């Protein structure tokens, strides 16, 4: 197609049989070779973890190590599932509680504030908005110490709610929601007002339904972020029965550092189920990350 527009001074482009986009075969081969090597490096540690979880205690201590298990065993998993000191369902429940509660709270506050920042004009709006944006710059290590002291004063240390109250207003989520809601036509909101709808009703029935994709993306990001969070849960939760999965995995790996087969089985049990969910919803997660360009 494109060759048609080429002036006659360049006859060599016309003689190309294949579409010009395609590099020569050698280059093509190199491309796939590099990608394959990169892909293998990226995937190898995952296989190492999964294979390790199926090795016996003797095989995992073999030198040099085997890659694929010689005799597969499920014993590691049964050891972990029957370990009274490691009630996995409790940890899953803790993690789920924190992640889901934070998703609900974040989506509610960010869409409501996003609506107000996008569609209302009032004194102090810009100051408040820029204050929120500036808070995004503050590293977690800075607020961690005073927030710990605040939680200890209000009795929320070693309490899962302590992981909720400190992140109930998420500047990043507000920024995204404001962006989306700003693109909705003002006339819609105005006409709902003329029809006598209350402001909350406009938010709930006019604005929210139109930003569902943004809500889904943000919800997933919030869930993933909270599910994988480590530093703050480590600071707040001191009792094992209250802890979330990453904190427990770290604790367990220190406790059983000599039994890597058990540590790998624990990693598999704690990581793989949710990883599958994340992979299935990857498209929206990627969308959320790229649309933000920020962490």
């Amino acid at each position: 197609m494109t060759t048609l527009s080429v002036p006659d001074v360049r006859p060599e482009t016309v003689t190309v049989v294949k579409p010009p986009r395609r590099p020569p075969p050698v280059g093509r081969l190199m491309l796939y070779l590099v990608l394959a090597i990169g892909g293998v490096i990226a995937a190898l540690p995952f296989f190492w973890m999964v294979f390790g979880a199926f090795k016996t205690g003797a095989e995992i201590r073999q030198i040099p190590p085997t890659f694929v298990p010689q005799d597969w065993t499920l014993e590691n998993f049964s050891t972990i599932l029957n370990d009274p000191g490691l009630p996995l369902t409790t940890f899953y429940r803790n993690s789920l509680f924190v992640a889901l509660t934070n998703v609900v709270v974040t989506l509610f506050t960010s869409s409501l504030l996003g609506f107000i920042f996008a569609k209302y004009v009032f004194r102090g709006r810009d100051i408040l908005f820029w204050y929120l944006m500036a808070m995004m710059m503050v590293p977690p290590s800075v607020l961690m110490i005073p927030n710990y002291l605040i939680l200890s004063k209000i009795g929320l240390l070693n309490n899962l709610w302590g992981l909720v109250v400190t992140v109930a207003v998420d500047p990043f989520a507000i920024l995204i929601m404001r962006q989306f809601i700003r693109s909705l036509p003002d006339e819609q909101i105005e006409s709902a007002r003329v029809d006598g709808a209350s402001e909350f009703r406009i938010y709930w029935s006019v604005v929210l339904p139109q930003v569902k994709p943004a809500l889904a993306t943000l919800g997933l990001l919030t869930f993933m972020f909270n599910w994988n969070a480590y530093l703050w849960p480590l600071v707040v939760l001191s009792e094992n029965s209250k802890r979330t999965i990453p904190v427990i995995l770290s604790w367990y790996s220190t406790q059983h550092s000599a039994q890597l087969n058990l540590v790998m089985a624990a990693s598999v049990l704690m990581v793989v189920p949710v990883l599958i969910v994340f992979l299935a919803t990857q498209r929206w997660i990627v969308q959320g990350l790229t649309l933000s360009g920020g962490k």
Partner: protein
Amino acid sequence: MTVEARERPPSTAPPKGRSRRSLEAPQNRFRRVVLAPIIVYLAFFTLLPLVWVFALSLFNYSPRREGASIGGLGGDNPFVGLENFQQLFDFSNPSQLTQTFHTAVVVTLVFAFIVLPLNLLITLPLAVMIEAAARRLRPLLRTVFFMPVLTSAVAVAVIWQYVLNPQYGLLNGILTKITGDTTVISWLNDPSLTVAGVPVALLAVTAAYLWMDIGYNLVIFIAALQGIPKQLTEASLLDGANAWQRFWYVTLPLLKPTILLTAILTMISSFQAFDLFQVMTLGNPDNQTRVLPLDIFQNAFTFQAMGWAAAESLVLLAIVLLITLIQSRMLRSKWSY
């Protein structure tokens, strides 16, 4: 009512038929009802901590000691003014705390300045290559490189500890296969191992960090590449540009703003890296992997020296703000293309 009138936005035109005030009143009420609790919340959980961390940095504070009435500051937790900061920046101070802080700053800087170029040198070409691959293969490739981003950092750390294990690890196993003799390298524990002056333990954690982090920038670059208008690359094709020239003279200049923004974000987040270091090395061996967030965490919660840790965290804040400032300058001056 007069206050109401002054707050009224001049930009919104009054809807026909009804008076302006009767329509605006519910809007203002709604806005206030929403914002009042939010502002109280922000004051309590963002402004108060900021003030508190500044206050803490001026005291020799430990939560173990009772102290005076306001936040336990004063009394047994004496006010020391800027002494914490003086000690932080006193380069002749032989005290353990000061020395460790200096080590932590250096380790953090080295880590951040290794991560940044390596990350960009991997992600940018990789993004271009993935976009050049057959359409059907792209989702698979993206997924493979993106999977570590979805995995919790603790799991990444645990997996990599096993990969790098001196006796039973994958890496030494592979090296043994290749070289023929048994390789037992203590990637994470041997303080005497260095490459060009950089401790191997730090490089090992950096490798795990890069593995975990590249998928993130990768998807951002892929999105940016997909945003480049087709006409531009096609035009260069007609001019007889080869793949390399196309990348160097067309794609790269167009990606400049994205690269700059990504570089800054990568740098800021590497200054805050904590999880991998806490799980994989805890700062060992010989503080060779003690990054600033880890030092702050340990001083605050292991040694309960919160005044000192607060002062340290403010230094971290200053570094991050400085980079953000430089970023906004660069972004402003280099937008044109």
